[in-house]
């Protein structure tokens, strides 16, 4: 089992794309089992026995496990799908590698960990002997990670090769037999876990000292900034997505929300931003009831928003940076003068953000799509911190961002908190959550199930609480 580590933007994904035939190398060669190969498409890679498990699952929800696995390489009998043969092979692979898959379950009924196993099964079904896993643990809670690693060890025992891409060093150290560190597109070292530790590895990866998300002194005041009470949200079918959610964030406080993705965090954020109306419940900003306010009014009142999915919710990809500076602040200085767009003002302020937040770009006229993820995120953070917000709703503010930018973003949040900003922080990075928050609440199936003191909790405990397995405090 070989791990490849490197910070975001180091070239891990590009390397994987080349190995899987999605991109052609300019130079160099790839050898599989000692034989030099050239892949011009993923099907060439599959033929050579190389399979890829993507970070984002590629499964059809409304298909069964069996249908998903065979999709694209169906065993046929006279033009029809040979169900018996498909089932036989899936069960065989499943029991050989301990994947325990049930062929007839609908994928939509499966949890994240199960889905990942189906992805692995899919690749094995196509005869792969070399598996590439791209950040497989990004979406898993600690317990699921353990299960995944058990599966991977099983695969290894059966003689398969696993290439494991990650930037979570402790995980890599636990499972890999050999680790290759890449930085800025080149290999900076290959080490074996026994001879290194997380810190040394990280420094190899970053090339410098490591940042940490810890906040030092508390700046919490007793002045409530954002109060949510009795917030309930149901789907059209009547299922509660959020149930009786309530909390208060004070001036200078960071409230962290921990939870496995899809337990209502997204809906909570949208309800607070006014993008989605709660069925019942109240949202108060300071002492004003803003439940009936439109998103724009809430933004004007000083709620800043860093959305989870920057491409969908925070950027106009095919618009220049300075227009992206205006987005979300279309009614505020310095972007507009009355009904007119103030181009000069917006451009000047975009330049300020670019300088102040170290957004690496040759110009403010390039499209947002031309920037790397980290730089896009820094631009968004800079934009949302403009205009003296009183509340910041930050959903996964450092997701997909390299270590340098991550440290910078943590710094901005800390500084703003010291100056009295109230922050709602939602993150899947438990270290970030524990390190930045003054209080942590755990959300499970749309309800708060536990309050955790970030000062004395470990990521493992938090992980248990998130899955509902741990004891409630």
């Amino acid at each position, binding site marked *: 089992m070989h791990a490849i580590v490197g910070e975001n*933007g180091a070239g891990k994904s590009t390397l994987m794309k080349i190995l899987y035939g999605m991109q052609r190398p300019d130079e160099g060669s790839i050898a599989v089992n000692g034989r030099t190969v050239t892949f011009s498409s993923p099907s060439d890679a599959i033929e050579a026995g190389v399979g890829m498990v993507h970070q984002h699952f590629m499964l059809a929800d409304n298909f069964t496990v069996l249908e998903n696995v065979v999709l694209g390489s169906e065993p046929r009998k006279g033009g029809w799908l040979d169900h018996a043969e498909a089932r036989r092979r899936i069960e065989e692979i499943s029991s050989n590698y301990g994947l325990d898959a049930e062929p007839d379950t609908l994928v939509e009924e499966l949890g994240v960990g199960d889905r990942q196993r189906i992805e692995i099964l899919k690749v094995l079904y196509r005869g792969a002997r070399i598996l590439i896993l791209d950040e497989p643990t990004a979406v898993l809670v600690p317990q699921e990670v353990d299960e995944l690693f058990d599966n991977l060890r099983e695969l290894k025992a059966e003689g398969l090769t696993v290439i494991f891409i990650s930037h979570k060093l402790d995980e890599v150290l636990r499972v890999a037999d050999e680790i290759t560190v890449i930085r800025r597109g080149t290999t900076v070292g290959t080490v074996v876990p026994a001879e290194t530790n997380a810190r040394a590895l990280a420094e190899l990866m970053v090339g410098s000292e490591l940042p940490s998300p810890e906040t030092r002194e508390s700046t919490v005041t007793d002045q409530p900034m954002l109060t949510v009470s009795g917030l309930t949200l149901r789907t059209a079918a009547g299922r509660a997505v959020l149930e009786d959610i309530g909390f208060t964030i004070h001036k200078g406080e960071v409230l962290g929300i921990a939870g496995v993705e899809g337990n209502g965090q997204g809906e909570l954020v949208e309800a607070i931003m006014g993008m989605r109306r709660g069925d019942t419940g109240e949202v108060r900003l300071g002492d004003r009831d803003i439940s009936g306010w439109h998103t*724009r009014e809430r*933004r004007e009142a000083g709620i800043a928003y860093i959305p989870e999915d920057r*491409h969908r919710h925070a950027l106009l990809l095919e618009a220049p940076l300075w227009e992206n500076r205006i987005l979300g602040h*279309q009614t505020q200085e310095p972007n507009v003068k009355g009904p007119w*767009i103030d*181009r000069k003002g917006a451009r000047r302020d975009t330049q300020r953000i670019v300088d102040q937040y170290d957004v690496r770009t040759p110009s403010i006229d390039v*499209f947002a*799509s031309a*920037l790397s993820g980290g730089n896009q995120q820094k631009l968004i953070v800079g934009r949302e911190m403009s205009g003296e917000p009183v509340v910041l709703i930050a959903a996964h503010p450092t997701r997909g961002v390299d270590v340098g930018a991550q440290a910078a973003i943590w710094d901005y949040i800390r500084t703003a908190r010291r100056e009295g900003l109230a922050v709602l922080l939602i993150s899947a990075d438990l270290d970030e959550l524990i390190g930045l928050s003054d209080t942590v609440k755990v959300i499970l199936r749309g309800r708060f199930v536990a309050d955790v003191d970030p000062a004395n909790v470990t990521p493992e405990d938090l992980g248990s609480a998130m899955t509902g397995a741990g004891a409630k405090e």
Partner: protein
Amino acid sequence: MNRFDPRRILLTLAAPAMAIVFAFIITSLVLLAAGDPIGETWRTILDVGSQPRSISLIVNSATVFYFSALAVAIGFRMNLFNIGVDGQYRLGVFTGALVGGAISLPRPLHILVIVLVAMVVSALWAGIAGILKVTRGVSEVISTIMLNFIATGLIAYFLRRVAVPVAGSNNIGTEPLPASGRVGGLSLIPDSPLQIYGFIVVAVLAGVGYSVLLNRTRFGFDLRATGSSETAAVASGVNVKRMIVISMLLSGAVAGLVGMPVLLGEAYSYSLAFPAGLGFTGIAIALLGRNHPVGIAIGALLWAYLDVSGNPLQILVGVSSEIVTIMQGVIVLSVVVAYELVRRYRISQEQRRVARQLDEAAGPSEPREPQGVGV
């Protein structure tokens, strides 16, 4: 500042140029297959551009097309497909002609009333589709097409009730506009026996207004933001439902102008012979001109040019004028493909260029990888 980057301009022009070359090849092949004279056909088409009379005809129909394409473009910029410009303008011009023929007012006021009536009626007609979309989720494509049919029916029905016979034919139309409701022509083209619609001034103003509205105002920003990413627009606080209704009303109001040059400058009444189908031409031209006010103007002129060249083809060369329609069709299809190719090329080029410039500028700094679009 690289707004006037020569490479960008070159790329912008590359797509329509490619499309025209491609259309030229396809059309030549069609001519070849039909055994028609290829050289003579092209010579005749090119000749059209040197005749003053044809030029006047081209400018006049381009004026009409321009309004139609502008109306469509407003919707396009917001990802709304207003297929109903056709019904909207016909209903508007019919009502405008009706009101204009029935009242008498001093000159500028009379014209103003006719134009306003047409714009309001067209806007309301388009607004129906907008309301249906935001309240019931009806696709504007479906509803505007249906509204086209209803408009056709309504006009035919009411025309029978109010019509007077048009002198010297068995055509029927609305009461002709009195002199105070007419707009005179301009003798812009030297040596041409035909005048240019005075309404061309309004077309120019509309183009400028469109550009200012979209690029310089808050409203325009919201509209473009909604068009390029509805999710991002919602998160930024845009009230998308309100924007849909307003854009449909605006698109309809501009559609109301489509029939005005002909009504006020040439026909003076709405009759069965009033030009129809201009709304669909507008869709093609908006695509050609890429929703850009200048691009649309060029597209409208090109379209009008081909339209006008159909006549001499039939008379002089004996080639069916439908060859022109084939060419128009091929241009639109290939231009859509070409724009998409150029768009993708430009995005990947820019990503590469930014990465390169940063590497040069920063040297051994933070590494970065170009992000895929929409991932």
